[in-house]
């Protein structure tokens, strides 16, 4: 009898859910979300950290419980995703990084009723999987143009790029940076009437963890006359910046040039606010946040979402970003509250030292990219990078 009553209760609840569901939205407050990171894990100073930041903010905003699942090795992605899906507890499971692509493809088929999202992957095409890609090439074009013009303005004839392991995602950074550099050279000549011939020094270091390689590569580039160095290798930026700092100290200075350009997260606050000129921000946090938000709002659907300069997914760092990430730095004890004023002042002074027309030119390029007037190579460069290197040479 009791069993029967329970069954009736269950049935009634199910019926209620069925009828009221569309009005209530699919998710309920107090739900759970899972973030599965790739091997870089937390503390990679790059997209895993940004992904965590987005998930953390979403969890706080929507009153959800966040479970972060890291992976010991590349073989962990599949079981980690499966284990998360098998619990059935999670409103959405977000995978961070293209390394999870194959595992995600399998798990999305295996658990068709589970919502998934993945960052940096755009080719899987599953009804229950939101794929979020980024236009890093466009953001890199902006900092490439900025870099070339600032270097030329300061009398340097080279800009550098220190890259990590050679993978297609990094080709996108390289391709955009190359395009931007050539655009910046042309713009500089057009505005000033002086020929600008800023060239590119670039190096794949083969690592996302050995800081020494970033430092040595940057020292080499500075010795060859680089006016700034673009960090495209997460933590190696610490080495890039250390090299720049020592280079400046040897000349009795603290502020750049030469500068570093940060990547993924905002790194402008490092280097006392006046050695990192700008950061090419890839807002993985924004992507993860909106994936969670869509589930909460009941608008989640599978398919590809491209985040770029137009919708805030890719951006060159501004003053508000600086303030946000100073908070981030203080929260971690990397800097203290008493540094905030000095860093902000230094940053403002650094930016002000760059002529206004250069910033206008960068905005112009951004607008042209947005309107489609300028097309930045490349969407997925695995098969075209050699051609791009020939078209936009060093």
């Amino acid at each position, binding site marked *: 009898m009791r069993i029967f009553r329970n069954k009736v209760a269950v049935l009634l609840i199910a019926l209620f859910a069925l009828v009221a569901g569309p009005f209530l939205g699919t998710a309920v407050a107090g739900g759970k979300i899972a973030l599965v990171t790739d091997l870089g894990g937390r503390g990679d100073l790059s997209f895993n950290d940004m992904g965590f930041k987005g998930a953390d903010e979403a969890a706080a905003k929507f009153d959800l419980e966040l479970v972060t699942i890291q992976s010991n090795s590349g073989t962990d992605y599949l079981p980690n995703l499966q284990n998360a899906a098998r619990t059935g507890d999670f409103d959405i499971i977000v995978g961070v990084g293209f390394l999870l692509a194959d595992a995600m493809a399998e798990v999305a088929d295996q658990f068709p009723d589970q919502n998934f999202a993945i960052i940096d992957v755009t080719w899987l095409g599953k009804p229950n999987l939101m794929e979020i890609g980024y236009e890093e090439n466009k953001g890199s074009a902006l900092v490439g143009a900025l870099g070339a013009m600032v270097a030329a303005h300061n009398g340097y004839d080279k800009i550098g790029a220190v890259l990590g392991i*050679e993978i297609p995602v990094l080709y996108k950074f390289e391709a955009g940076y190359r395009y931007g550099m050539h655009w910046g050279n042309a713009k500089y000549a057009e505005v000033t009437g002086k020929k600008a011939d800023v060239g590119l020094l670039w190096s794949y270091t083969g690592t996302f963890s050995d800081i020494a390689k970033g430092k040595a590569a940057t020292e080499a580039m500075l010795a060859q006359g680089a006016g700034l160095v673009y960090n495209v290798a997460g933590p190696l930026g610490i080495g890039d910046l250390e090299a720049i700092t020592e280079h400046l100290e040897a000349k009795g200075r603290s502020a750049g040039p030469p500068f570093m350009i940060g990547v993924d997260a905002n790194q402008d606050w490092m280097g006392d606010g006046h050695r990192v000129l700008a950061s090419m921000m890839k807002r993985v946090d924004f992507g993860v946040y909106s994936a969670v938000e869509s589930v909460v709002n009941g608008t989640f659907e599978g398919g590809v979402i491209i985040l770029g300069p137009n919708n805030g997914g890719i951006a060159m760092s501004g003053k508000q970003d600086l303030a946000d990430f100073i908070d981030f730095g203080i929260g971690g004890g990397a800097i203290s509250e008493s540094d905030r004023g000095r860093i902000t002042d230094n940053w403002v002074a650094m930016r002000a030292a760059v002529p206004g027309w250069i910033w206008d030119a960068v905005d112009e390029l951004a607008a042209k990219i947005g309107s489609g007037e300028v097309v930045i190579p490349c969407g997925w460069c695995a098969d075209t990078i050699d051609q791009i290197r020939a078209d936009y040479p060093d």
Partner: protein
Amino acid sequence: MEVEHLWPIFFISLHAMVPITLAAIGETIEESAGLFNIGLEGMMLISALTGALGAEYTGSAVGGLLVGLSTGALLGLVFGVINTYWKGDQLITGVGINLLALGFVAFMLVNLGAPGFHIVPRDVQIKLIPLGVGAVSPLVFVTVAMAFVVYWLLHRTQLGIRIKAVGENPAAADVAGISVNAVRLGTAIAAGALIGLAGAYLSVDWFGAVTKEITAGRGFIALAIVVFSGLNPLLALLGGFIFGFFDGFATWVSTYPKIKEIIPWQFVAMAPYIVTLLVVAGAIGRVRFPKALGIPYLRE
């Protein structure tokens, strides 16, 4: 490549030499006494973290180095006790230390509020000494001095003879009245101190920050350098410099625009490993190790 680029490459090599060589000299001391420690990587990693925090809290770079050194000594004590009085397995202990360190440092950096790395404020980093053609860290001189001091200690003093006796024939040393376990424990602590200094150098001096993977395999390279040197600290100095030179050189030349057309970067990056092998095969050859290396001493 221009001539004026040779100076910076030289200084890069010197700075790359320091951590490998310091750790290798430390390992040399304990291997001479018969202890084989593959936990260098983990010990350096933990000391890099404590060194960075130490520099900040003491407000002095030297303070940071000393904190890192003490951390290493403490870990050396743990390794030493397990592998002397507790007759543990040296290899498993080393593997355990590495695993523990990997987790511990990342845990401290990532989960206790930090953004995954910790920047050492500029004013509590070691100041470089300007030399006109470049700037050099004082730790380079410390490393060179350490090599000579440890060489002298091992080969010219009574203590050195005792250490080597313990590594060569612990039973005979025991009969001669040397406390095998005490000597080994002492070398483990001394070795740990040098390994800890090597770790602290990474964060307080070379990189000015600590990340969860800051050692990047240097502990294992140090292990290779010990073999390279055949337990001779002066040769460890040379080996560390050769490796550091080709490591820095490979990274350096891979930034040259023309080089990529000639040789892929992956092959340039192999240079330090190939050269080290060639030097060992060509010039160093066979090395002798203490007979009791890696074997716990059980009194019969």
